[in-house]
């Protein structure tokens, strides 16, 4: 019920002495809090029944060489109205320690370990200070996002071993899986502890694909980094590039033409449809039900070939540009897209009937890999996975971007949090996306599709933007550096938030069901590892 303004007043009443400054940043209220008081303020914001703020993003910035300070920012999403609220704090000079909020807020766990690895700042009171991104063979003292760390010197090697959490006792054994898996998928390590069949514990050890994306952004110009954003996670090309472009557009004060906003929504929905189709098929395949996999693979291929015909890229690469879109579609092409989808939708509906009529499939999917609403909320889980567990969140509706102001989508919501719920969210979203694409084709205005950015943003100003990609909420924070370069770019794929939640969803399930559960989450390794 609380919007950001009442939240501010409430926080000011409760913690007036801790709050140093209140300034908004692109419409989002920002509170500067005294470092040592931040955990209390965050805890209040997180637990107060009126506010119930979920931690959406936590990032750090190294302000050198301009100022010798680190800044930590905590972005909260308030319940009900989904308003954003920012808490910021500074670490002046040589300070390296800051109090951790993790004991109160689960969702901060990986973010804090990430900050420790990338900046060398140490969260005090954090329950788990093992390395996360820096695998143990990275040399001591290598913190890549510090400004004095050279971006292009390849890391050396030292000896080291990762210590997994260990459960000991009679009949308990460990099953290591990865980093290289049996299928055509990305690398990641999973360590199961089992006694008999059920999983007692799963620990995820990722970041094998860490390519230094955020540091690479810092070497680029604001207007030239879209190709890199497209390659953060290849399957979410449109989502990532759109989130990046929007952040830069806010910084450069560019008004995107209305037609371009419609086209952006169109491409984002196309991406959602082909990925969801692939996921539905892959989930059936993991229950050894090959028929829907074949049908879904065929329909997905149809859309990817359509992408190739209209945009020249199967992944819609090169579509988004700072200031608009790089290609315009003719009326014939728009009609062609809708005609193709008009063919696919009844085809897909028939397949849905086959799926729902299959009792053995339902048996495999129901009550498998349950992520409860409480756990989902504690970990601030989002996107498809969140909506299957009753977390009602959809950036397209809550903070409309592109054409969604004019074409509001219906958010799909299921409560059970099992594999079947996650599949049903995808099934429903496919229909919803097709509906949106039809509306876009009907209502798309004429006009230009690109505004060239002219202004060079002031050094040190920053902006953030959110996009509902097909997996969930993608966040970008972009800070301008000198002469139109990027000072800092924080990339947050929904996978980074949702990965830890799998560790809870698999508990009590058997290992043979893990591939199915993992597929129903279908998270990106590339977008997580950066």
């Amino acid at each position, binding site marked *: 019920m609380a919007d950001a303004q009442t939240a501010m007043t409430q926080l000011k009443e409760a913690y007036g002495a801790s709050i140093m400054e209140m300034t908004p940043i692109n419409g989002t209220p920002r509170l500067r809090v005294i470092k040592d008081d931040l955990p209390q303020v965050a805890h209040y914001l997180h637990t107060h029944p009126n506010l119930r703020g979920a931690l959406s993003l936590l990032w750090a910035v190294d302000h050198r060489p301009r100022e010798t300070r680190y800044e930590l920012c905590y972005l909260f999403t308030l319940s009900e109205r989904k308003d954003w609220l920012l808490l910021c704090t500074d670490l002046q000079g040589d300070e390296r320690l800051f109090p951790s909020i993790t004991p109160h807020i689960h969702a901060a766990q990986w973010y804090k370990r990430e900050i420790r690895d990338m900046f060398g700042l140490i969260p005090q009171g954090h329950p788990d200070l093992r390395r996360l991104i820096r*695998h143990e*063979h*990275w040399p001591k003292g290598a913190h*890549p996002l510090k400004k004095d*760390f*050279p*971006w*292009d*010197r*390849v*890391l050396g*090697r030292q000896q080291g071993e990762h210590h997994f959490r260990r459960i000991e006792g009679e009949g308990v054994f460990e099953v290591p899986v990865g*980093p*290289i898996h*049996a*299928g*055509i*998928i*990305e*690398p990641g390590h999973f360590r199961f502890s089992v006694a008999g069949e059920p999983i007692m514990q799963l620990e995820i050890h990722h*970041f*094998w*694909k*860490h*390519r*230094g*994306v955020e*540091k*690479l952004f810092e070497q680029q110009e604001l207007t030239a980094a879209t*190709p*890199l954003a497209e*390659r*953060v*996670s*290849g*399957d979410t*090309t449109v989502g990532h590039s759109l989130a990046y472009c929007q952040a830069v557009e806010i910084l450069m004060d560019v008004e995107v033409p209305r037609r371009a906003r419609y086209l952006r929504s169109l491409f984002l929905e196309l991406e959602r449809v082909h990925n969801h189709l*692939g996921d539905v098929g892959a989930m059936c395949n993991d229950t050894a039900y090959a*028929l829907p996999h*074949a*049908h879904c*693979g*065929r329909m*997905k*291929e149809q859309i*990817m*070939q359509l992408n*190739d015909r209209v945009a020249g890229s*199967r*992944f819609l*690469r090169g579509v988004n540009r700072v200031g608009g879109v790089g290609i315009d579609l003719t009326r014939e092409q728009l009609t062609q897209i809708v005609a193709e989808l008009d063919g696919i939708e009844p*085809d897909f509906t*028939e*397949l849905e*009937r*086959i799926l729902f*009529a299959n009792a053995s499939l339902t048996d495999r999917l129901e009550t498998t890999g349950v992520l409860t609403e409480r756990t989902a909320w504690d970990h601030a889980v989002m996107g498809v996975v969140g909506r299957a567990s009753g977390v009602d969140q959809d950036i397209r509706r809550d903070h409309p971007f592109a054409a969604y102001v004019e074409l509001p989508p219906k958010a799909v919501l299921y409560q059970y949090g099992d594999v079947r719920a996650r599949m049903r969210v995808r099934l429903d979203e496919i229909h919803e996306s097709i509906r949106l694409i039809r509306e876009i084709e009907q209502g798309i205005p004429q006009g230009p599709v690109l505004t060239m950015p002219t202004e060079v943003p002031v050094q040190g100003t920053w902006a953030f933007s959110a996009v509902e990609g097909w997996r969930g909420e993608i966040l970008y924070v972009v800070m301008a550096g000198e002469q139109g370069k990027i000072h800092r770019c924080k990339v947050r794929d929904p996978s980074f938030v949702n990965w830890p939640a799998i560790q809870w969803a698999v508990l009590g399930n058997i290992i043979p069901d893990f591939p199915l559960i993992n597929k129903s989450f279908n998270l*990106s*390794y*590339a977008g997580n590892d950066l």
Partner: protein
Amino acid sequence: MFRIIKKSLKTGVVTGKYPRAETPVVPVVQEAKDKTKLFKRSLTIREVDTGSCNACEMEMNALMNPVYDAERFGIHIAASPRHADALVVTGPVTVNMERALKDVYKQTPDPKIVIALGDCAINCGVFKGSYAVTGPVERHIPVDVHISGCPPRPTEILKVLSELRDERRRSGD
């Protein structure tokens, strides 16, 4: 049951419904073709991702869908490198994956060929120069075939793979 049969009959055969590929940018060298002669008419592939953006993985997966159906050319995906004739490597080699790649290479029985798939595997692509990227695949293990593109289309991958196969047919084994 009838619903399923009806659906299959209505759909018909979709295999082969894709636009033809152009000739690959990097031609397949003769040595690679000679090496694959031993595998006769099948090629069992193990895919290794060493840091790609996962678009190449999606295209490899697409190869196995009913439209491309690479199985009809004798191309299989193996679950273990120990069962593979060919390694397909995607992505620039990250510092964290370097050792895993070398292990996989060692575990693949000889004779074997290595295919670098996508621009990143060939020259690191947009990730070139990063502190976390140790260089293209060629720096770590010998590469026989290059398939460029970001990502290469399934038709382009298929074209190269079938070129390796055509050679075998001509040599008459």
